[in-house]
């Protein structure tokens, strides 16, 4: 299973980026092979609007099935749900910490956005 983690750096030791739409990068981690790839999100970091929607689209194309992040707004959540991606919010620490918590099964799936939209 492929999971995406919002990251401020390029590897598993990087701090988890608490923002979803304007996360610097996504680490795409394969739970079976234990390998990972980095997906750049620079374009959305500076998007004037709709960064969460666009980031969700990028994740959808990447084949990720789950997202581990800090916070997720309503438009991003709606888009991620439509793409069939499970969302886990409230994470912090490093990317590796988030993966460990996910694999231990202690995380509960988010049922909705945990922050207000940043546009309205």
């Amino acid at each position, binding site marked *: 299973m492929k999971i995406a983690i919002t990251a401020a750096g390029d590897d598993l030791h990087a701090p988890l980026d608490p923002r979803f739409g304007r996360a610097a990068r996504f680490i795409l981690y394969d739970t079976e092979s234990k390998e990972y790839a980095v997906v750049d999100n620079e374009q959305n970091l500076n998007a004037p609007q709709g960064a969460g*929607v666009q980031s969700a689209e990028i994740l959808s194309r990447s084949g990720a099935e789950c997202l581990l992040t800090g916070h997720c707004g309503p*438009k991003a959540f709606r888009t991620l749900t439509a793409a069939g991606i499970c969302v886990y919010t409230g994470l912090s620490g490093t990317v590796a910490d988030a993966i460990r918590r996910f694999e231990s099964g202690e995380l509960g799936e988010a049922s909705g956005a945990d922050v207000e*939209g940043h546009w309205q």
Partner: protein
Amino acid sequence: MKIAVASGKGGTGKTTVAVNLALSLPSPVQLLDCDVEEPNCHLFLKPEIQREEVVGIPVPEVDPDLCDLCGECGRICQFNAIVSLKTQPLVFPELCHGCGGCRLVCPREAIHEENRPIGDIIFGRREGVDFVQGRLHIGQAMSPPLIRAVKKEAAGGVCIIDCPPGTTCPVITAIRDTDFVVLVTEPTPFGLHDLRLAVDTCRALDLPFGVVINRCDSGDERVVAYCHEEHIPVLLEIADDRRIAEAYSRGEPAVEALPRLRRDFSRLWKKIQHHSTRMKSTVTRG
């Protein structure tokens, strides 16, 4: 003739200049309040309101029976207002700029447009001044379509446009296609900094412009020096007069509290006419 009253910095006196200029000109004059996020000309003009209209923008609606999930709509949208994943396209009306691109590219004609209200236009009148105000609905962020709708009410005579502050899209929308831009500033470092940005904006749009310095004796000489260096006409300097501030606090136009100011605003109008024709001919020659 359309005159935009703009500024880089907020709170320099755009509304004061726009309202008092409108009240100092022979009728008929139109005053358009295009600062639609916080319109305030009416506080001073106190027009009698005649009617209101709702303004909307077209946003897409997708017919699920016709959509074949091709994703063209999402690819053309530069604003992430419509996305097409493995499922039906999702529409985010609050991000939509109403360009109609998604409807045009849809090969199945599965998209039609619905009108989404974004604001009101209010029409009023007072003593020879025809007043039109745009008022953006609370929670809306898309002001340019409403500003364009207010500007469409310009009747062809003398028209004063009170603009939003800054140099972003709403300002560009408000000053574009006007005959002259009056940039109101104050003689402070902030006033000068934002005046430079506003000057760059007018130059990029090839619009003739001049400067009004409000509270002219309250700061330093740098704004005057800058205008001199850049060959920018200083059209009017308004003194830092407590009586103007007191009238403002009561919602009274300055020309009513201090009738001698009418002469200053009439002179401002003459200078605007002079510079707009002169600068325009320079632009044409260039």
